[in-house]
């Protein structure tokens, strides 16, 4: 602080009111910075003239861990990347390892995974609607969004045994089948959900205060966004209709009917609108999947590379030995793979290099939040200080995956 004060004194000039620049550190404990982001701001009055986002406060060395634990052991760690959509992170990692090892996943397991990915997108966007609204000052919508999220979690709890950080995806499939009760409850939840989206829109979209706080704020152009590697809803809000579910389809997305919403202005309000429309599209996808879920196995029947179902492990010696070997000794072939999925915030990619050992030789997690966060600087520089929070809220990053 000393240096700042000295600088202010030396640059102080009564004839020029703009000579005093205030250096302000926002975060890492600021409630609106979604965790532990710190932004070093230089302010000229109310104007932000320089911003420097500082990340790394939540760095847990996941990529280093990946080089030392087995592939099975790494699944729980992926949960804690973007902790709002833990199972989508697991699906991405599973697809990466399966591509490398050439594991075939049964159709039903793929359908369940696709469904889970969309439910995760819904739950992550629900947080966005709730917390994003709260950041702007719309308190009520927070309770509406969290009520829906909790009821979705209740269903996921029945399916996986946990509300969040479920660890449900396995190599070659998923950990448990969708039973009739869960399917019925999910159908009910999905059928009710469009009404809930209308409620959010009623509370926010046409809300004059919300509109004025978001419209024209934190604008970036399509060219800027592409240059900065921005993906996901933030890129689509600038008018670039790129979605990995269409561009590089994985799971069952090439057979599903859905639209890719795009914005026009690339401002905070467009990012909000794109996400709300994605809520509707994800609901559509989930509806299609639940309508006729393919029958078959939920995990590959060929047990060379996959964990045997728990029921058989407890009753058969061979399966017990097999489970032990898979957990402790399973190795994919040597090679390298980059596999990306469309996560709630953008392109979540895993770059895996294997030398044929029990653990990855190198695992790079291409986290969408890390890359998208670079666009915060052009969004807030030149704008007002009070709009910083609107930009942060609309950009929506998760520090767990930013810092890894």
């Amino acid at each position: 602080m000393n240096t700042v004060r000295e600088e202010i004194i030396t640059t102080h000039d009564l004839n020029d009111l703009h000579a005093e620049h205030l250096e302000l550190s926002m975060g890492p404990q600021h409630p609106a910075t979604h965790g532990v982001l710190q932004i070093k701001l230089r302010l000229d009055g109310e104007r932000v003239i320089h911003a420097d986002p500082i990340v790394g406060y939540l760095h847990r060395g996941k990529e280093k861990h990946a080089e030392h634990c087995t592939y099975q052991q790494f699944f729980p760690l992926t949960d804690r990347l973007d902790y709002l959509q833990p199972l989508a992170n697991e699906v991405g990692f599973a697809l990466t390892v399966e591509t490398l090892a050439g594991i075939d996943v049964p159709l039903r397991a793929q359908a369940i995974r696709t469904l889970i990915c969309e439910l995760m997108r819904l739950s992550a966007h629900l947080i966005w609607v709730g917390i994003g609204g709260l950041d702007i000052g719309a308190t009520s919508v927070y309770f509406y969004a969290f009520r829906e999220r909790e009821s979705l979690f209740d269903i996921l709890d029945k399916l996986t045994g946990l509300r969040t950080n479920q660890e449900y995806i396995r190599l070659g499939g998923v950990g448990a089948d969708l039973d009739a009760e869960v399917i019925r409850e999910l159908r009910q939840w999905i059928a009710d959900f469009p009404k809930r989206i209308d409620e959010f829109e009623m509370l926010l979209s046409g809300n004059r205060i919300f509109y004025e706080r978001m419209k024209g704020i934190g604008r970036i152009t399509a060219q800027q966004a592409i240059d900065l590697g921005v993906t996901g809803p933030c890129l689509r809000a600038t008018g670039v209709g790129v979605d990995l579910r269409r561009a590089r389809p994985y799971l069952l997305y090439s057979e599903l009917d859905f639209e890719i919403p795009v914005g026009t202005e690339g401002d905070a309000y467009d990012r909000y609108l794109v996400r709300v429309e994605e809520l509707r599209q994800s609901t559509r996808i989930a509806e299609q999947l639940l309508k006729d879920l393919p029958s078959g196995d939920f995990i590959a029947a060929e047990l060379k590379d996959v964990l045997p179902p728990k029921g058989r492990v407890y009753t058969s010696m061979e399966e017990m030995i097999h489970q032990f070997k898979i957990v402790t000794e399973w190795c994919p072939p040597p090679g390298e793979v980059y596999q990306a999925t469309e996560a709630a915030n953008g392109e979540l990619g895993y770059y895996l290099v294997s030398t044929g050992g029990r653990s990855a030789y190198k695992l790079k997690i291409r986290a969408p939040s890390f890359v998208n966060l670079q666009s915060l600087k052009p969004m807030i520089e030149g704008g007002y200080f009070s709009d910083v929070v609107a930009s942060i809220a609309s950009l929506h990053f998760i520090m767990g995956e930013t810092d890894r």
Partner: protein
Amino acid sequence: MADHPVSPSSSKTEALAALVSEFGAEHLPDAADGIAGILVDRDSWLELARQLRDQEDLRFDLLVDVTAVDWPDRQPRFEVVYHLWSLTHNRLLRVKVGVPEEQAECPSVVLVWGTANWHEREVFDMYGVRFAGHPDLRRILMPDDYPYHPLRKDFPLEGVDNSVSYRNEGGVLMTQELFVDRPAGQDPTPVDRSKGDPQGYSDGAAPADES
């Protein structure tokens, strides 16, 4: 926007082959994910990067990811790996640039793809590879004064005590307190542990009741 999926050979176009031979690069063997890869000499990488972005038939306009792989037994030791995506043609390309340990430096592509800024800072932070021409090459995930590059293979998983630096002097391991040259006022405050731990925890005892 192309709707078709990336097929294994889709990035191996004539334009790429021409560029590869022009810059003396070489094609990498086929990978399991079907993404075409090229190995580029670091001296020609920056110019090649510009061509990859700007040529009409290539248009790799989005730099998806930058990382490095440490191969302690190979020459060169580091491999900087780039993943490029052409939104126009919906193609992916993997580019590898070898960087030796002695002179761990690679040209920065921040001027070609702005997103490289933080990616290159991360590679520098984790592997110690410097990027020539980077506008702001600071550490990004580790603290600014952290003395190691933790994703190098010779860095132990359990980490090292980073308040102390270790050096080997004639077979004797010497330790030296780090951060001694910090500006005044930033020194770590000495903690008085004579009355137990500062947070009210003592060995084995339950935390003090806050009520």
